[in-house]
């Protein structure tokens, strides 16, 4: 009843092609942004910032990166964490070694470094496909982490290989409180999400999708395969790289190469699968789901066991948590293989008709 585009006429191509052609969507997104930028910093506590909101945004960005590669360009990758590692270490090195380098420039350079390495590891995709490629991206995962461990130069000769980053400072303002860091991450993530949304609606995005759906056919209709695939790798790695830099600078504060393990890559992959492969919104929904589910289980299971007087000891709760997590992933794939984003879409369609059945 409220969500209906009746009476909204488009009189120009620009109006027809905008990101949110429906007025209610525009209002919705405006409200969301106001909440995120104004209301949340006012009301949320430090736990929410440090343990939920900041990692949520950072992982959304990484998932966005992977979604561009896997969801739009169809190249399955199991090495996203390694590209985050490159971003984190590159940003650290630019920051420490170049006197007076503005931190945002360091972030961008970190992204570009990751993109460069991404292109390198994307080259095999021109020949290898499917699961073979997926396993091949594991080469990137292990090799990059090994390099970061082995070259002491990259961690500024720290004896343990761990880097500990200083607080972010932009134009003399120190981002040392959780809300400040949150706003910084939020701004960057919003801008990059907007860029991603526009990218996938453009010629580039269409070329990616054509390659994803059938690369031979895409080539036949005149899409340059090499260019398109490598661009996808570059853009995706750039996003992961920036996410990695934020992960180090705005979330953990100190990272070691082993932290960017295969598990982390899987976690990001889970995010896009649960959220929705080939959907910008899905990256955010998936990140929220994968991040919040373990926390939710962690809190609710002991409570539940207390309620039912079941004898759960610490280890059992952790085991059940793992099982529920695995079961939910399978459940999701069975019930809604297109992820949360698809559910959202279905919801919107239903809402258009509501209160009528058809």
């Amino acid at each position, binding site marked *: 009843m409220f969500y209906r585009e009746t009476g909204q006429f488009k009189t120009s191509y620009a109006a027809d092609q905008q990101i949110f052609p429906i007025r209610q969507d525009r209002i919705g997104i405006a409200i969301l942004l106001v909440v995120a930028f104004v209301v949340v910093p006012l009301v949320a506590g*430090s*736990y929410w910032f440090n343990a939920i909101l900041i990692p949520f945004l950072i992982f959304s960005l990484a998932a966005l990166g992977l979604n561009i590669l896997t969801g739009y360009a169809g190249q399955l990758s199991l090495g996203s964490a390694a590209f985050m590692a490159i971003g984190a270490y590159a940003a650290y090195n630019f920051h*420490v070694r170049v006197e007076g380098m503005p931190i945002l420039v360091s972030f961008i350079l970190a992204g570009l470094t990751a993109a460069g390495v991404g292109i390198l590891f994307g080259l095999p995709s021109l020949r290898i496909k499917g699961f073979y490629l997926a396993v091949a991206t594991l080469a990137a995962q292990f090799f990059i982490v*090994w390099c970061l461990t082995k070259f002491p130069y990259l961690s500024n000769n720290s004896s343990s290989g761990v880097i*500990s980053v200083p607080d972010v400072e932009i134009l003399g303002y120190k981002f040392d409180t959780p809300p400040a860091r949150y706003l910084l991450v939020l701004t960057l993530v919003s801008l990059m999400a907007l860029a991603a949304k526009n990218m996938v609606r453009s010629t580039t995005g269409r070329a990616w999708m054509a390659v994803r759906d059938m690369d031979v056919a895409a080539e036949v209709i005149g899409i340059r395969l090499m260019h398109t695939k490598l661009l996808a790798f570059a853009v995706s790695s750039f996003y992961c790289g920036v996410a990695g830099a934020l992960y180090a600078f705005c979330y953990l504060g100190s990272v070691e190469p082993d*932290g960017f393990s295969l598990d982390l890559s899987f976690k990001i992959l889970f995010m896009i699968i649960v959220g929705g492969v080939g959907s910008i919104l899905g990256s955010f929904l998936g990140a929220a789901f994968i991040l919040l589910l373990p926390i939710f289980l962690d809190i609710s299971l002991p409570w539940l066991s207390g309620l039912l*007087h079941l004898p759960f000891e610490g*280890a059992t*709760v952790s085991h059940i*948590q793992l099982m529920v997590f695995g079961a939910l992933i399978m459940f999701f794939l069975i019930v809604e293989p297109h992820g949360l984003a698809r559910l959202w879409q279905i919801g919107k369609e239903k809402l258009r008709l509501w209160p009528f059945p058809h």
Partner: protein
Amino acid sequence: MINKLKKLVIASSIAAALLASTAPSAQAAEEQFFMLPSYRVGPYGANGQSFYGGFIDYLSYVNMKGGIDGVQNTWEECETEYNTAKGVECYERMKSKAQKAPGPIHTMSTGISYALVDKTAADKLPLAMMGYGLTSAVDGSVFPWAFPLVTTYQMQASAIIKFLKDKNGGNLTGKKIVFLYHDSAYGKEPILALEAESKLNKFTLVQIPVAHPGNEQGAQWQRIRQEQPDYVIMWGWGVMNMTAIKTAQKMGFPREKMIGSWWAGSEEDVIPAGDAAKGYMSATWNVSGKAVPLIADIEKTVYGAGKGNLKDTSKLGTILYNRGVSAAVLSVEAIRAAQAKYGKGKAMNGEQVRWGLENLNLTEARLKQLGATGLLPEVKTSCSNHEGSGKVKLQQWDGAKWVPLTDWIEGNKALIHPLFQADAAKYAKEKGITPRDCSKEK
């Protein structure tokens, strides 16, 4: 099946007893809250199980004996799976609860402690890293809130060298020692110390890294066989330890010449290796067994009342269990020290517990009072020395239990501590921290 049912019944009665027992203590006026970012699943779950079991059992034990001068211990666990990001989440989740009266935080993970060093300092919560973590925090002037108590990787490596030197009539000249290490922050920490020792004692040091997780070490041991070293010092963790021991057997390398770090010297590491582990040595900063009166008393008091944390009581008295108890002893003693200064019978806040940790003086006499003679070395901390001891024992596995070989051995402090200070100074510079003046602390 019947067995299972039985277990279920027993377990549920334990849980009921636990519920009943914790309920009244929740209303007690003064409480000290221990946040436990623990791990009981994942690749190192078995190790965490014993350590945190011992830790919690000692806290219950103290509670049953009337608390810390009337102050009851409370605690909450949060599963980290040894994963840094999860550990940070756990910390953030529990820190508001700990704000009022925190116990020292034990993560049992180098990665998590690294990530928490700055956060705990900002939140004014004391962080303990007993035998792991950021070792340069020995220099308390730069790290007021972090305590690598008892001993560090570097001091331990130095103590092992000292042990070998004594064994060889005080001279290691011309000997060859292989350092086999887990290729991570943990394994890399002692390298600087060992290099310094090799220069000083004129032995050849060969470094061989093992990639995580270390479940395949054929090539590494073939290289060791080729090098023909006099000793192998091993910095392993989890599956890497038993694989190393088994592979040493496979290559015919005598286990009597292998010395592990203290994370490579628990029952969890040697029992799965079976007979292969016989003769293998390791360092440790606590002894195993129930011969220590405190451990026997915990079993009697806590498990006798059905309030034990571990379902599998065979773990009692193992190295890691006793280590958990030792860690808890030190934490509780720090709180006692703080109470002595700031008021007995009161819950201590973060600043006060920090003071307690920095002015800890656990003497032989006090250990005897606690029934913990010989369980751990004497510990005396200060602002400039957050380590407080630097001593370890060497022990040998005889196929059934760990047998202590030596008394407490102290590493070469004059050689090692300046390394910490240099590292701490570098850290302070990178982070823009102005170190405290330790001479002004009292």
